[in-house]
């Protein structure tokens, strides 16, 4: 029952994130999606991923809040509550297949004796190091792009 309620919140928040014109409200809905997704992961015994989702989500949402407030234009007209209610109803209708239908998943014949620590450090260690390198490169690149713009302006 809890999972179904979370799924309802997830789909309604996702619909509102796409539907709402005001960027700040839209990002707030996206924050709800992030938090509900993290709760869903935690309930599925993927605690590390839930914590990671919250940590990454906090950073992404903070930046998106700033960007949404700074860059978006104000909408020409306000959305009415009636339309928002309709969006929520559509979201609930979209959720019905995932509650009542099911897709059979056949497990692949792979050994499942690998723990999370082994998987990340023994099997994917090079990927983890490379992703750190990629993130660092992106951070430096963006800092350089924005810094050069500032210099050119002055």
């Amino acid at each position, binding site marked *: 029952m809890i999972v*179904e309620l979370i*799924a309802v919140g*997830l*789909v309604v928040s*996702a*619909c509102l*994130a*796409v539907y709402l014109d005001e*960027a700040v409200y*839209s990002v707030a809905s*996206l924050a709800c*999606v*992030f938090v509900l*997704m993290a709760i*869903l*992961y935690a309930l*599925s015994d*993927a605690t*590390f*991923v839930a914590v*990671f989702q919250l940590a*990454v989500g906090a950073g*992404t949402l903070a*930046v*998106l809040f700033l*960007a*949404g407030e*700074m*860059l*978006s*234009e104000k909408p020409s007209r306000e959305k009415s509550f009636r339309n928002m209610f309709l969006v929520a109803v559509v979201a609930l209708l*979209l*959720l019905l*297949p*995932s*509650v009542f*239908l*099911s*897709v059979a*998943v056949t*497990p692949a014949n*792979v050994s499942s004796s*690998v*723990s*999370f620590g*082994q*998987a*990340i450090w023994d*099997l*994917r260690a090079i*990927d*983890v190091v490379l*992703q750190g390198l990629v*993130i660092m490169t*992106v*951070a430096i*690149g*963006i800092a350089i*792009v924005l810094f050069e*713009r500032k210099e050119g302006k002055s």
Partner: protein
Amino acid sequence: MDYIILSVTLLAIGIYGLLTKRQLVKVLISIELIAMAASMNFVLLASSLDRALGETFLILAFSTDTCVTAIVLGLLVIVSKKYGTCDIRKLAEIEQTEKGVYEENKS
């Protein structure tokens, strides 16, 4: 509760936003939703099958997703400062106008 259909639903919402919204911030939010729908499959299937490798892949996917968001936001700031708008249609119009001016100057 079927997680695959739930993730397809989220994917559909993201694709709808990607195709219909004109503001670049909203397009970015739609891309976030699509990435989240894709990564949800990894975690929930991995945890239901008791395989840790799927969770590891998700952590790698998150990092890539964050990099994409950072790059798009950087480009968005530059576009917004240069053209004064983040509306896709207005940007297309500006590009057409600039192209026309360039062609006139060339001829």
